[in-house]
């Protein structure tokens, strides 16, 4: 089922939205790389759910309003977006920066959300365990360090992005710096409020994540009030890409359990 591409406007901000499927709503919040393509992971979810994948303001072809200057701003914007679209009982899934965003949203207002899946989220800091510095890595290094299985990296590195794709990559990179450069990949005020996320949560982490080390999984599991943790073997920072079938089986089981 191909995704339908639409544009919505929330508070005068144009947001590009990929959507597919019918059923309970799954809102997927992308990470630093944006939404370069409709993933098999989305496709499989869309068989049972209505899957919404927005491009965050500042990413892809969405607008980039200057007043969104931090992750808390972006989270407040998403609360507006969810209201604007009349979304309810939403299953929230976030990866990396999108996982950070999911937590920022839920600590503020969880009324319209019923569960949370965190795929290697950023957002908190384990003292003494620095994240990988993907701002200083070169282009090839940055792609390679996303994956455990280097054949994924090889396939991406074999592609030559066109000018429009290069522009989007640059735009994403600027926004990622704006949101996450300092302090690097976390909000010092987030961890102390994670107990507010009183929805069932599934935390998924690759055992070979070179960006957010697996030590972070333990802290998330300890801080979220109702969380279970799955460590995926042979997997880097994008579990839903690199180990899609394994992650899907966990996510499906979790979402069905969280359904009532």
């Amino acid at each position, binding site marked *: 089922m191909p995704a339908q591409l639409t544009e919505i406007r929330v508070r005068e901000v144009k947001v590009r939205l990929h959507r597919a499927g019918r059923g309970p709503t799954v809102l997927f919040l992308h990470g630093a790389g944006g939404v370069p393509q409709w993933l098999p992971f989305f496709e499989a979810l869309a068989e049972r759910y209505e899957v919404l994948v927005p491009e965050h303001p500042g990413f892809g072809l969405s607008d980039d309003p200057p007043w969104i200057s931090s992750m808390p701003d972006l989270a407040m914007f998403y609360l507006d977006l969810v209201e604007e679209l009349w979304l309810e009982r939403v299953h929230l899934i976030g990866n990396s920066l999108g996982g950070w965003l999911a937590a920022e949203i839920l600590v503020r207002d969880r009324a319209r959300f019923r569960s949370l899946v965190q795929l290697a989220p950023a957002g908190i800091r384990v003292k003494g365990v620095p994240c990988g510095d993907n*701002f*200083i890595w070169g282009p090839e290094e940055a792609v390679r360090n996303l994956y455990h299985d280097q054949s994924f990296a090889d396939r991406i590195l074999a592609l030559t992005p066109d000018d429009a794709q290069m522009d989007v990559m640059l735009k994403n990179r*600027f926004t990622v*710096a*704006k949101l996450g*450069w300092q302090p690097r990949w976390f909000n010092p005020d987030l961890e102390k409020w994670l107990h507010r996320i009183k929805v069932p949560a599934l935390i998924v982490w690759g055992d070979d994540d070179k960006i957010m080390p697996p030590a972070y999984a333990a802290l998330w599991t300890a801080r979220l009030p109702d969380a279970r943790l799955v460590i995926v073997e042979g997997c880097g920072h994008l579990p839903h890409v690199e180990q899609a079938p394994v992650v899907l089986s966990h996510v499906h089981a979790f979402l069905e359990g969280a359904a009532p």
Partner: protein
Amino acid sequence: MKLVSFHLMPYRPLDLAEAAKHRSPWVVLPNRLYDPVLGAKEYERHIDALVYAEELGFDAIGVNEHHQTAYGLMPAPNLIASALIQRTKRVKIAILGRALPLVNNPIYIAEEFAMLDNLSKGRIIAGFVRGIGSEYHSSGTNPYFSHERFHEAHDLIIRAWTEPGPFAFDGDHFSLQYVNLWPRPYQTPHPPVWIPSQGSSETVAWASHPARKYPFLVTFSSADLVARYHNTYRNQAREYGYEAAADQLGWACPIYVAESDERARAEAGHAVETLFNDFLRQTFEMLMPPGYTSMNSMKNFVAMRRGLGGGKATAEGLIDSGTALIGSPKTVLAGIERMREKTGFGILVALLQFGILSDELTRRNMDMFAAEVMPHLRD
């Protein structure tokens, strides 16, 4: 023409072969490669060279700020400036410059410059820069807000120097209940402000604005680029309705003078290559963190680099492109005069020690520059 003897204070004892194994001599070069005994000697010799420049008749001596790098040992250039004040009498002392966006309270920069201006009885030239890309990695400052922080810090410093305190400052990045400088600067209305830059059009438009008319120093670029940036400034000034004066345009350039072109190249060729290939070596990601320049400037930079290709700088290439002036007095003078004809620039910031150039050769270079080149540049 105003002549500035400028120094980067590189760490010359650096094991270049060992350093080459690391991503860059900036940010990540392990500091076990710094030997404090050798480093302390470096400070002594570099300061001696700057002090000597007063004796030779330079108008100003210059230092600058860089962090966490073997390229330059002056994370706090004002400390060096303070030492120079005590050892000199007449010469201006140019700090080229302080990196405004990297600090959390720019008042400290305003205060330190005001102190130096008092200590020197008005000999300070205050350079304002944003810091180079690598310094956003090493300081953690968010490059996305670099321009905003620079402009806000600049406005705060100028107001702190000129407006009666105490007053409150309400910025987006810096918000202060009390701005009230003690001491106030010695010079009225404040020390001259110079803007060293690698030539971004945004900076040119800002520096040349009639409210500022800040001298604009182009650093480490080919002669063609220097001329282009100078003329961009001139044209921008004309658009603002005035003609840029000679002392609004500066050129910072490695210079080496010897009896003959051959001798100059033999003595300084390798050293200038170490400046560009060893001490300045940085990756694109370090030089251009996201947001440090506008998206368009960054795209132009990518295209330009692609055009240049990789590869190492050679002394020959640096000399041919006019990035470095190395040769006999006649050759060096001709390079300066060519630029003067093209752009009418009036500030020459001469880097007379660069890379691993030894104390002995630096001294000889300074002597020969002062004896054979300087007299021809006096207006």
